[in-house]
C-alpha cells in the first residue's frame, strides 16, 4: 500500500512542482489571486477533512478490536464527512464560475496586468483541487464498499486489511489537502 502511496506522492508532486515554478515566475500575480479564494470555506473544509480522518482512524481502531457496529458507524461518519467536503468544494467551484475565474475565453480578472498570469494559477487551482476531489470521489466509493463488506461480516480482529489500506489512502488524501490549503488560500492574503 505504501508503494502505491509513493506513486501518488510522485503524481501530486508533479503538480506541486509546477506550482512552485510558476509561483517563482509570477509572485505578484499568484499572491493577488488569494483575495479571490474563499478562505472561510477553505478553512471549514480543512476542518471537515480532519474530522473525517479522525473518524477513519477510529474506524480502523474498531476493526482492530473486532467491533463491527462501531466500525460501520465510523465508516458511515467518514463517508458523510467526505461528501460534505465535496459539497463545499462544489459551492466554491460555483463561486469561481459566477466570478468568471475559470480559465478560458470567459475568464475575467479585476487586476488587468495579471490577466494571463492569474489564469495559470486558476488553472493550477482547478487541476490540483480537481485531482484531489477526484481522489475523494474514489475514496467515497471505496468507503461504500467497506461498509457493505463490514455489514456482511467480512472483517474480524484477525483480518481487516482492506479497512487499514483504505484508511491509509484516506489519510493520504487528507495530507494532500493539508498542503493545498495554505498554498492556494493562505499565502499572499495580506498583500
Amino acid at each position: 500500500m505504501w508503494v502505491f502511496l509513493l506513486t501518488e506522492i510522485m503524481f501530486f508532486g508533479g503538480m506541486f512542482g509546477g506550482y512552485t515554478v510558476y509561483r517563482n515566475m509570477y509572485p505578484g500575480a499568484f499572491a493577488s489571486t488569494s483575495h479571490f479564494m474563499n478562505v472561510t470555506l477553505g478553512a471549514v473544509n480543512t476542518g471537515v477533512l480532519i474530522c473525517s480522518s479522525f473518524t477513519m482512524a477510529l474506524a480502523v481502531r474498531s476493526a482492530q478490536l473486532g467491533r463491527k457496529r462501531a466500525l460501520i458507524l465510523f465508516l458511515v461518519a467518514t463517508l458523510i464527512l467526505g461528501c460534505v467536503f465535496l459539497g463545499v468544494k462544489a459551492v466554491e467551484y460555483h463561486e469561481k464560475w459566477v466570478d468568471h475565474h475559470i480559465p478560458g475565453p470567459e475568464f475575467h480578472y479585476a487586476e488587468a496586468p495579471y490577466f494571463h498570469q492569474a489564469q495559470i494559477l486558476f488553472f493550477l487551482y482547478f487541476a490540483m483541487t480537481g485531482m484531489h476531489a477526484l481522489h475523494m470521489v474514489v475514496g467515497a466509493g471505496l468507503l461504500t464498499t467497506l461498509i457493505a463488506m463490514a455489514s456482511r461480516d467480512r472483517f474480524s480482529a484477525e483480518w481487516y486489511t482492506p479497512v487499514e489500506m483504505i484508511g491509509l489512502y484516506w489519510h493520504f488524501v487528507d495530507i494532500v489537502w493539508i498542503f493545498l490549503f495554505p498554498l492556494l488560500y493562505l499565502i499572499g492574503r495580506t498583500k
Partner: protein
Amino acid sequence: MKHTVIPVRLYALVFLALIALTIVTTEISRIDLGEYNFIVAITIAVIKAMLVILFFMHVKQSSSMTKLFVAAGFFWMAILIVFVLSDYLSRGWLPVNKWWQ
C-alpha cells in the same frame, strides 16, 4: 497485519492538535509577516502532515521498511523541489550570453 491498538485519547489529542493548527495557520495568514508568511504556513502544514502520518497512519509503530518507504517518498519530493528551484532561481546569475544569441 497486527498492530498494537492506540488508545482513543491519543487519537483525540492528535485530532485537537490538527484543528488547533488549522485555526492558527488561518489566523496568522491575516497578519503581514512578509516572507515569513510562507515559511510559517508551510511549517504548520508539515507539522500537521507529520501528525497524520505518525499517528493516524500508524507509521510511528510500523516496521523500519514502512518508515523507509515513507521517507523515500518525501525525499523524492524534496529532490524535485530543490532541483527545480536551483534551476529557476539561479537563472540570470551569470553574465553569459544565451546560446541562441
